[in-house]
């Protein structure tokens, strides 16, 4: 019986850490695979179908119908161009992360200030309305950024030699979406600097005004 328990204990000592490690590693790789699949340009059949549908739509939208000479030119140079676009695609992910962090901080600062102003019985109706508008603009930016990201992904993934028209349409779509995202970002910035910051100046004056009678009263 002693031998039985000795064997049992030894087996547990050996097996438990190995199984726990294996499960933990499996858990880690399963979560990691989700993020890696986002970077991959290898498309599934369903993704290819979706991409082709987008490309056809873009061809119609931008009325892409290349001449034979232009097709040959694209076929010769598009593979190298796709390599450059792929590096831009890598940078977009970083931009997405940093932008979302910046905008989140801005909204958090304003929301905290609004709460403090409410605690001081200062009217925050305008500030709350501006925060809501800002959130809408940020949401628009995020949506357009996702579209832009998709357009760039399509531009990298399209079989440019087989479908020069599709490559050209994806390129035009990427340019258009880039302009849109840039305008969204500028819109957010201008709204903060042109609307919210002046409002903060007004609020500061209000707070200063509210503070001055009490301070005068306390001195008298």
């Amino acid at each position, binding site marked *: 019986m002693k031998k039985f328990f000795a064997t049992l204990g030894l*087996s547990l000592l050996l097996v438990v850490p190995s199984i726990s490690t*294996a499960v933990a590693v499996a*858990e880690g790789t399963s979560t990691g695979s989700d993020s890696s699949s986002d970077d991959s340009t290898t498309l599934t059949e369903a993704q290819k179908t979706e991409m082709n549908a987008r490309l056809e739509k873009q061809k119609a939208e931008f009325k892409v119908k290349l001449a034979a000479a232009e097709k040959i030119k694209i076929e010769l140079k598009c593979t190298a161009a796709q390599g450059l676009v792929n590096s831009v695609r890598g940078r977009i992910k970083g931009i997405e992360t940093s932008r979302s962090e910046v905008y989140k901080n801005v909204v958090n600062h304003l929301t905290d200030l609004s709460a*403090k102003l409410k605690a001081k019985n200062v009217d925050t109706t305008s500030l709350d309305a501006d925060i809501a508008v800002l959130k809408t603009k940020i949401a628009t930016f995020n949506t357009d950024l996702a579209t832009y990201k998709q357009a760039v992904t399509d531009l990298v993934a399209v079989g440019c030699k087989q479908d020069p028209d599709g490559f050209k349409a994806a390129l035009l779509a990427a340019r258009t979406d880039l302009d849109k995202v840039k305008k969204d970002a500028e819109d957010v910035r201008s709204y903060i600097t042109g609307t919210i910051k002046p409002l903060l100046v007004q609020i500061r004056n209000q707070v200063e005004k509210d503070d001055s009678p009490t301070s005068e009263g306390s001195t008298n």
Partner: protein
Amino acid sequence: MDDQPNNTPSIDGITPPAKPIEAQPTLNPAPDNTIQTPSSTEPVSPPDSANVPAIGDTIATDTTPNPATPTPAEASVPNLASAPKKKKPVVAIIVAIVIALGLGAATVFLYMKYSRNSNSSNTSGTSQQASNTITPATISDVDQASKQLDTSLAQADDNKDFAATAFSDQTLGL
């Protein structure tokens, strides 16, 4: 009764073969009956020592096991004794694996549950703290908020992040 085996009629005048006759001592119940069931009228007396060995001999020759070759019962005893000794480690290892699988799964489950709970409790805790410890705004709070907006916006460079030339024909070499 003693005459019965000898009275079997011979077919075609040939005497029966020797085999049945040799088998008689074991098959013939006559000697056993005379010894084992004495008549009730006669007093019970110990069996004659001369008869007992004769009967015993016939029994002994049939039932006594040969010491050189073990009986099936004897052969099975060492098997029963040795079988658990061989199975014990295997059973222990199987039990250990089952327990380990259970422990491993429970550990991972608890870890995942704890990490999720800690995340949610941290976020809810900070929001609760924030709501509980809101101090009325001062001028410096407003100034600080304004500065933080400037700092945040300075971190994002629109022209760099969304350069219009990123997809120009010149940049891409088209």
